[in-house]
């Protein structure tokens, strides 16, 4: 049985196929509105993430399927101490595919070992979030028309932001990618990820100045500094507003730059950027539904 726990579970071919289907859905959504008639997606959210849950539910409903689930652990049997494996065992009988979010890292993997239906990891703590990565790849492909020959700026929390690590791992599989790593010293890309870059032979530059290489970028991926990663409130307050992207900082940027953000944002992108055609982050959120539609079909074996 196929599960999606880590983006590395999917080959480049599988990812390219998903992107192709998602693009077809964007072009002719009507053709897909009954693809999953009679099928049920369970969204098991052991911690709340309204945005991701709604994206999955919208995807299934747009395919003609149905959804059930819970949106936080306190409303489920988990609060009574049931193990992940037991919950999955039961819910597997109620549904055809499960999207699961859990605060503990590795929980979706544990679920997949015992599950009778495909498991999609909808985020496990700060560990993996493969449907975000798929969303990012579709966004890049749709906005830029390619996944190779790109200079990608990654800005903000590169230390704990695993969305960024996962995107790096995914993009390394395409040709002629360059990375510009923009972060304060305290939030630089960790050593083991630098090793990944080194061993792949890809070109990368580290800087803490967001404007230094702005004119070279095809993609600018902004991230949020997450409060729960800090032991000390002062550090968080000092670093959270380290980068605030505004129109002034974009003055040297390419005309066809694509600005991305996994959302929700805090202060990293000033609202004056929202109306600029280069701001792709709201479109990115919408692409998330289309790639999840393609993914659900693939997991259910629907052509």
């Amino acid at each position: 049985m196929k599960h999606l726990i880590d983006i590395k579970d999917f080959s480049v071919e599988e990812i390219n196929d998903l992107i192709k289907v998602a693009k077809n859905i964007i072009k002719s959504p009507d053709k897909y509105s009954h693809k999953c008639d009679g099928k049920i997606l369970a969204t098991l959210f052991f911690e709340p993430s309204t945005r991701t849950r709604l994206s999955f539910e919208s995807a299934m409903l747009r395919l003609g399927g149905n959804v059930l689930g819970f949106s936080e652990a306190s409303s489920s049997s988990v609060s009574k101490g049931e193990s992940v494996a037991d919950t999955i065992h039961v819910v597997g009988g109620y549904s055809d595919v499960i999207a699961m979010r859990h605060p503990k890292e590795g929980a979706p993997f544990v679920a997949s070992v015992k599950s009778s239906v495909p498991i999609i990891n909808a985020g496990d703590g700060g560990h993996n979030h493969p449907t975000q990565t798929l969303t990012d790849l579709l966004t890049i492909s749709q906005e830029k028309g390619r996944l190779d020959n790109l200079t990608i700026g990654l800005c903000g929390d590169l230390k704990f932001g695993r969305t960024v690590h996962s995107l790096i791992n995914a993009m390394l599989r395409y040709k002629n990618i360059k990375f510009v790593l923009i972060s304060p010293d305290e939030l630089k890309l960790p050593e083991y990820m630098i090793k990944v870059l080194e061993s792949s032979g890809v070109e990368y530059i580290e800087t803490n100045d967001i404007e230094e290489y702005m004119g070279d970028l095809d993609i600018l991926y902004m991230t949020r500094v997450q409060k729960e990663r800090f032991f000390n409130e002062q550090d968080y307050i000092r670093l959270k507003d380290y980068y605030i992207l505004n129109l002034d900082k974009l003055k040297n940027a390419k005309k066809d730059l694509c600005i991305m953000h996994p959302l929700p944002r805090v202060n990293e992108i000033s609202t004056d950027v929202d109306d600029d055609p280069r701001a792709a982050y709201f479109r990115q959120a919408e692409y998330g539904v289309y790639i999840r539609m393609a993914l659900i079909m693939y997991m259910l074996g629907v052509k």
Partner: protein
Amino acid sequence: MNIDSIKNGYVLDHIKAGKAMEIYEQLNLANLDCQVALITNAKSKKMGRKDIIKIDRLIDIDLDKLGFIDPNITVDVVKEEKLIEKKKIDLPEKIVNVAKCKNPRCITSVEKDLDQIFVLTDKENQIYRCHYCETSLKD
């Protein structure tokens, strides 16, 4: 006790000085009723100082556990007072229930029935990562 005094058993040699007690505990040697000798700070040409453990019985030794603690240990197998084999051990690809994941966000921190599994991801630097959350044992 020297090697001649072991009839059938093992000599764990070239243990890094100071590590013998950890191995004694990890291999549960306290539970054996045969002779077990711990020699610490023995002189060694190669290592300066080393520890040695002698076990006077051919028990089942978990070589993966041993390799994880120190891959440079050698295991001499003694039968009928003769050295019949020198086992070379290596870093195990996977260790189960030897070390615990320290990541408080790991699923193993709340589900105690799960096996604690670590996988060797970087042999050169001896990096093991948790099978569930990928946190390195050395972090």
